[in-house]
């Protein structure tokens, strides 16, 4: 809109004799951009507008009544429902716990592999440690469901050998969410590990040697050298993981489908259940918009907090 107005004033300012050439020059970039704009419209903006529109209507796919405009009703009922509040809490617990575990583990593993990098066979260790990323998330979830199986699963089999009581991993409401977190940690810690390790390899060896001469303890080497060195990389990994964790879905649906009870009932599960189990499209659209807004807010806050420290987007200084 603003662009068009500016163009109009510019065109008016240009003498009429030159306007032809000028218009051609102006048109070329627009034409070249057109295909991507069309794709963007069709795949992102279109569906997004449709989503907002759906969120403002009451619509059940199993009923023949046409969608009815209800204004913000869908949002209102969503916010006052206990399900939504539970889902919100579960989602945050899931994301924060998994994120913390993945970071601590990934970092410790990377520091360990980096420290022992000169030993023979470390290349194999490195490869082995990264293989979980290669497994499709749905496959990982199903595989773990079998391992978690209380009666013939391998985990309880091992616990039985040692004589430890066998919990129902996915059927005990106190444990289920954390059992799922363990799957995510298993699969995505290698991602953190890999990027942190790459960051460690990028640090010049002489820097660590200088630190050794300076009498720096291994712990201070990590806190005063390694972490500051690739803070920026860490921030990017943090963001990527957080986005992923907030919308984690397949791993939950393939194991507990949000249960037992509401033990692992997160917001993405709520959206899925509302839309594709109950076919309440209006409510589901409202919930997914809320999810989108939450993710956006979290990410924005995080980026802003970090850029205030001069880590993102401000050069090396």
């Amino acid at each position, binding site marked *: 809109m603003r662009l068009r107005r500016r163009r109009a004033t510019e065109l008016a300012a240009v003498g009429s004799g030159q306007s032809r050439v000028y218009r051609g020059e102006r048109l070329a970039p627009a034409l070249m951009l057109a295909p991507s704009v069309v794709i963007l419209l069709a795949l992102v903006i279109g569906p997004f507008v449709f989503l907002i529109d759906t969120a403002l209507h009451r619509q059940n796919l199993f009923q023949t009544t046409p969608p009815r405009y209800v204004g913000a009703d869908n949002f209102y009922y969503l916010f006052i429902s206990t399900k939504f509040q539970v889902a919100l809490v579960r989602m945050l617990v899931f994301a924060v716990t998994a994120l913390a575990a993945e970071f601590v583990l990934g970092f410790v593993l990377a520091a360990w592999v980096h420290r022992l990098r000169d030993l023979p066979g470390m290349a194999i260790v490195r490869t082995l440690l990264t293989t979980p990323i290669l497994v499709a998330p749905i496959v990982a979830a199903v595989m773990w469901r079998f391992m978690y199986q209380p009666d013939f699963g391998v985990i309880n089999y091992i616990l039985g050998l040692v004589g430890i009581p066998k919990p129902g991993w996915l059927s005990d409401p106190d444990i289920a969410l954390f059992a799922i977190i363990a799957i995510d940690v298993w699969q995505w810690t290698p991602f953190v590990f890999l990027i942190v390790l790459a960051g460690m390899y990028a640090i010049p060896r*002489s820097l660590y*040697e200088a630190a*050794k*001469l*300076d009498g720096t303890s291994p712990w201070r080497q990590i806190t005063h050298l390694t972490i*500051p060195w690739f803070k920026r990389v860490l921030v990017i990994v943090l963001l990527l993981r957080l986005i992923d964790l907030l919308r984690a879905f397949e791993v939950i649906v393939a194991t507990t489908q949000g249960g037992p009870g509401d033990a692992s009932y997160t917001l993405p599960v709520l959206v899925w259940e509302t839309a594709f189990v109950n076919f309440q499209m209006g409510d589901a659209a409202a919930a997914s918009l809320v999810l989108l807004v939450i993710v956006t807010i979290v990410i924005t806050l995080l980026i802003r907090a970090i850029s205030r420290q001069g880590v993102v987007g401000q050069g*090396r200084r």
Partner: protein
Amino acid sequence: MSEIVGVTLQGVSKTYAGGNVAALNTIDLEIRAGAFFSILGPSGCGKTTLLRIIAGFEYPSAGRVFIGERDVTALSPRERDIAMVFQDYALYPHMTAAQNMTFNLRNRRVPKAEIARRLAETASILGIEPLLHKRPALLSGGERQRVALGRAMIRKPQIFLMDEPLSNLDLKLREQMRIELSRLHQALGVTVVFVTHDQAEAMTLSSELAVLRGGTLQQMGPPDRVYARPANIFVARFIGSPSMNLLRASVRGGRLVMESEGTALPVPADARLQEGEALLIGVRPHDLKVGRKGEGGLAVKVALTEHLGRHNFVVCHPVGGTACLHEQDAIQFETEASVRYPVGTELELSAAPDALRLFTPSGERRDEAP
């Protein structure tokens, strides 16, 4: 200030790849307390490995390392009380110059007042007070160099190790830092072990130097002595610029006769030579003088003149065949800037007998050291 001590290496060897690749062969070195000691050699000669063994970053495959009286062979770097200036300075990029310099003291929980006092003292010696709040990325090469030096100095270590610290600086700055380093060494009186491939650097800075080649110690001594009496033709060619001329000759009738026919030089007085003995003659470019024709000097033909302002270097080829040992068969000598020889001029060069250095055909020093 810690007591000033020297470094002693006893039979230090280093092998890699399970003993298949030898980086250092049985090095014995005695670095006196307070010396500015240079380890000099071409790249890949093992000089950095040697320094890293002194620092404790690498352990010798055989032999012992002493700092002062203390056997440090098995000690880690931080237990050795040494400081090092790295080739790339290795400044911590996220810390300011002041934080870089005081990191060690902070690690060791030195009281804050003491840290501040030492920082001010060191910064004033190096003249870097205005830089203290800046991060390395904002400093120029020379400034980083000073901060790196400051980081080493502030700890008052027993030994300073420097790994080609000037090689990343441009020529002007390098000369300036050379003077600075000399001044600092004199002011602090500490022991410095300095690794370089630049013979001029080693010559100007050191009180003593060691020449290394292929992991083997070639010669050790004060620079002027190594320059005047190189132990073998490698040292002779490596030290001094342009390099020493090396010529094949044999003793005939009390004169050194070149392999190229008809040219000869007088024999040094104190050399006990046998008739017919084959030799290599080394003579520095500035010791060669243009003699009169027909006096029986070294016959050469001018190929090229390099003008260097105050003097020229003339590159010539021996007349009548190969006499030189080294590449391109060229003999160089020095003249005053006003003297010019057109290309193709035939000259006869002579040298004072005591300016000649004699080596055996295998390249070892022939004349006994007086």
